[in-house]
């Protein structure tokens, strides 16, 4: 039996952490309740004491906890980010997920013994970039951006010595992660600094007859017909009219799902699979983690993924294998 891929699962709240652990997560990743992480949504994330309890719950059951501190510190105000690194280390987390080179340097020099993973927000997708992070900051794992095919990942893994983690399920960014300015353009807030893409405070829905119209800031993002599955109103998933025709210019509202490609990712030398969705509820966490637990274990035994239906929890109620196949080429 091959070594199963590590299953890295999201938790936006203590109940979701417990759900992820109980459903078979190898690792749960979380963030503090502030702008130091890229899911800084209202009412979400962990206080220090909640993280302490969460760590105890996870560690007692053999599950590790990674803390994402993956936004870019504000100029002249690094304290919240430094405090987050110090607190995560003091509480006993198992790894930090970081994107900013200044913060990587801070973590490397102040908490050298704590594992450092490079966040997808750093958008490191080539050998030279990954080697730089490894040599300069002792990064032990890189979370790869969702722009590479499985073949490209295999080629990359053959040339680097750090572990790679790839996204396996959930919301999908088509833009270069960590460099996208669409949310910032529309709302003044971005995932890169404020930790929030298309913040709910700027989202508005309007009823127009039987249609639902979604807006982000001053922009109309989509018009959904009665009963048509909906998605988040992000600019990259907007349906726009060009040359007289309404279509999804960048990306349709859909979720990544590579549950059937796990053996290929294992063969490509990937170490861990990440499930997106810290902003989702514990029902989502339980359902998706359970399905992936079974699929990862089946793949390790050389068996196909057991049948499962994750369609109901996907955005737009549709799945894609995203860039891993790039079948649109």
């Amino acid at each position, binding site marked *: 039996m091959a070594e199963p891929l590590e299953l890295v699962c999201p938790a936006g709240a203590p109940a979701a952490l417990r759900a992820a652990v109980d459903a078979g997560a190898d690792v749960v990743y979380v963030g503090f309740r502030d702008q130091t992480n890229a899911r800084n949504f209202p*009412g979400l994330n962990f206080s220090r004491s909640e993280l302490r309890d969460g760590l105890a719950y996870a560690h007692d059951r053999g599950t590790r906890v990674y803390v994402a501190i993956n936004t870019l510190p504000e100029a002249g105000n690094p304290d919240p980010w430094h405090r987050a690194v110090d607190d995560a280390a003091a509480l006993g987390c198992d790894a930090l997920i970081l994107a900013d080179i200044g913060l990587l340097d801070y973590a490397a020099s102040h908490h050298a013994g704590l594992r450092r993973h490079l966040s997808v927000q750093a958008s490191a997708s080539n050998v030279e970039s990954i080697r730089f992070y490894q040599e300069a900051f002792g990064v032990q794992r890189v979370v790869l951006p969702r722009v590479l095919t499985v073949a490209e990942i295999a080629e990359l893994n053959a040339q680097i010595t750090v572990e790679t983690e790839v996204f396996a399920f959930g919301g999908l960014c088509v833009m270069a992660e960590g460099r996208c300015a669409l949310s910032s353009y529309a709302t003044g807030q971005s995932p890169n600094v404020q930790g929030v893409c298309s913040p709910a405070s700027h989202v508005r829905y309007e009823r127009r007859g039987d249609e639902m119209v979604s807006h982000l800031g001053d922009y109309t993002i989509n018009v959904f017909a009665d009963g048509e599955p909906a998605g988040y109103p992000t600019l990259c998933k907007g349906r726009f009219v060009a040359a*007289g025709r309404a279509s999804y210019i960048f990306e349709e509202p859909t979720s990544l799902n590579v549950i059937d490609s796990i053996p290929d990712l294992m063969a490509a030398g990937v170490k861990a699979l990440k499930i997106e969705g810290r902003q989702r509820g514990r029902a989502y966490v339980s359902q998706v983690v359970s399905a992936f637990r079974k699929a990862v274990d089946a793949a390790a035994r050389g068996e196909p993924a057991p049948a499962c239906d994750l369609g109901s929890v996907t955005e737009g109620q549709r799945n894609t294998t995203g860039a891993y196949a790039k079948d649109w080429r």
Partner: protein
Amino acid sequence: MTDNRHSSPPLSPVLFAGLVLRPLPPSLLQPLLGVAMNVMRERQPGLFERLDELAGNAFLIDPVDLPFCFVLKLDPRTPNLTCIRDAADAGTPTAVVRGPFLMLIDLLEGRIDGDAVFFSRDLTIEGDTEAVVTLRNAIDSGEIRVVEDLLSLLGPLSAPAQRLADAVGAVFRRATADLEAVRSAFVSPVRDKSDAQAVRIRKLEAELAEMRDDLRRLKNSARHRKQTELAET
């Protein structure tokens, strides 16, 4: 996560129960709601801590298959839940959440995912999106068990009462599935016809868009030809 489409009530046992309950004044439910809120505050301090940032906001919770609604007022000192007959009596709530009653209970107890039922358009919301997201995240951070928590007040009788509640719940859910099957049998032929018409309309729209493109190109070409002729003369 907001939509102000008004949901149609599903054909469910709750709908029939609502018709039976219609003559009763909503105030009869008030003592039970008061107890429920007290129990929740006692058992879910973390949830109410997260709700602090919503202090002063009011949410209208509208089960579309019941003849009454609930208003959740997040008063900083004593958050309270009130039952009202008519949504219009809720004043100007921060946001409105609409959906079938059992789905709202499933959401409250974390058995289903809020985004999933929003994506499928079963849950409809209007008003302040950020407030709704905060409320959803706060509720999901706890592990609420409405019936279990209320029955625990019965002391030694809570265990048999819980078994009874589970049995009733199972009957309700099975009846809901059966009624959905009946509804589907009636609606399917109409829906199939409607789907076929929708496909035809989309095809016609695409053809129309292509014709518009062709027309635009022809106009541009004619304009260009005219300009060339003028330049030559």
